[in-house]
């Protein structure tokens, strides 16, 4: 394992019965980099993230990470039953052995210190996401894993949240792996984008991915003027089930802008 990589995934396959949710995925999370997973619903993004977290064991393939790697995790949605009386402070206390000062500092770094004494049931979507982020920071993570951090947050709040995540990366010098639906909102705050649809369709810098034909095929054309610049062939297509259909050999052409593993 390269020392610059916190996590290395090699030929990962995860099957639920006959359902091949993750199909031969290889990728690496680099020290200090923000990696964003994008892909349509059912593309296996959450499954891949859970495998990285060790919540799911792979059907085959390798996930290499240091056993002492400190991970801060922010789940997609936290549904706390309203019968559970819980303030933000008490919620953070159930996390790690952190001091009151640590808790306040974590809340300050997500600009949510005013929420300390509030009930978790009274928080807005964006406030809850910040509190969850603060909890993940309490562990002083080397890797921050965020499953759709912007869920339930309005557009302005989303941009702010992604900027916050980028600033946290700089401040805590950690790597970030996150899932997002909207590439254009995360673009500015991302080093590496992986476009996932059970397998890796394409990957690379956000500008490259946003103009990659396989990305456009999944998400539509962001701006038609970009299309011509990066048009190139793929060695496979998708049928309506998202399965890979190989093209004829004479059409095959590896493109350099996409580091995908086809």
């Amino acid at each position, binding site marked *: 394992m390269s020392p610059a990589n916190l996590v290395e995934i090699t030929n990962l396959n995860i099957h639920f019965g006959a359902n091949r949710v993750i199909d031969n995925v290889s990728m690496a999370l680099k020290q200090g980099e923000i990696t964003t997973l994008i892909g349509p619903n059912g593309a296996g993004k959450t499954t891949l993230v*859970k495998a990285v*977290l*060790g*919540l799911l064991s792979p059907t085959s393939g390798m996930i290499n990470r240091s056993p002492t790697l400190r*991970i801060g*995790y922010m*789940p997609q949605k*936290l549904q*706390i*039953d309203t*019968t*559970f*009386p*819980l*303030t933000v402070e*008490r*919620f953070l206390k*159930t*996390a*790690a052995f952190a001091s009151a000062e640590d808790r306040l500092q974590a809340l300050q770094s997500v600009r949510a210190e005013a929420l300390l*004494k509030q*009930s*978790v*049931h009274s928080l807005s979507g964006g406030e809850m996401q910040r509190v969850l982020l603060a*909890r993940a920071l309490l*562990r002083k993570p080397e890797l921050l*894993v965020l499953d759709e951090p912007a869920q339930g947050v309005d557009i302005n709040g989303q941009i702010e949240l992604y900027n916050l995540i980028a600033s946290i990366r700089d401040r805590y010098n950690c790597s970030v792996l996150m899932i997002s639906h909207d590439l254009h909102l995360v673009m500015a705050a991302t080093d590496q984008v992986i476009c996932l649809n059970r397998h890796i369709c394409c990957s690379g810098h956000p500008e490259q991915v946003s103009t990659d034909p396989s990305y456009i095929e999944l998400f539509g054309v962001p701006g038609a003027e970009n299309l011509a610049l990066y048009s190139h062939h793929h060695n496979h297509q998708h049928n309506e089930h998202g399965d890979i259909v190989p093209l004829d050999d004479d059409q095959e052409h590896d493109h350099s802008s996409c580091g995908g593993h086809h």
Partner: protein
Amino acid sequence: MADFLLFALLGGVGVALVAGPLGSFVVWRRMAYFGDTLAHSALLGIAVGVLFDINFNLAVVSCCVILALILVSLQRQKLVATDTLLGIMAHSSLSLGLVAVALLDDVRVDLMEYLFGDLLAITPDDLLWIYGGGGIVMLLIWRLWNPLLAVTINEELAQVEGVPVTRIRLALMLLIGVVIAIAMKVVGILLITSLLIIPAASARRLANSPEQMAVIASLLGVVAVFLGLYASWNFDTPAGPSVVVAALAQFLLLYSLPIRRSA
């Protein structure tokens, strides 16, 4: 005060104290049906106790614990939804218990006593089970409090943070199994879950933290036991159901009052 009344009070108070924190988890984790299922299986424990001539308390505790273990392992399968599974187990174990008790024709088992409890017939031996078992349960809850809360908030988050989630969840189910077994004498198989969930649900109205909710639930349970026994003594009503009615009255009162909470 008559001995039996003192024993009834002591038994009821012991069960109410331990039911507070555990009942809170039952409410938070929506396990009311799970509690019912375990309670219904207790009758099977009685039948087994009669059949093999073992101590009833021991037989019921073992039966509840074994059923809790079976439920935990069955919940991993995906063929039948959990609530369907619980429904099947609850009513078939109750029926199996009723059939088994009926087949033991040389022994007369007073069904009413087990279905609705017989608080006024609590013996010193029962008190030993209530305070011994209850004490162990309280000690374990105290030791496991933070991981139990973490698992209740979110199991995956807890697991990433290093909490042994499967073991904690199993521990909680076993604790509930033990409490149901020792509470059976007080309110009976059919009413046990109410003693777990009604005081906890009432306590929610007053609590601003999980700890407050657990403690207030215990206190409300104790008050309900006193009120129920008082009614039973003065109006000759059945003791177990009177305790439950008292708990219900607290619940209705607290939910009709305009209370402002901060959490």
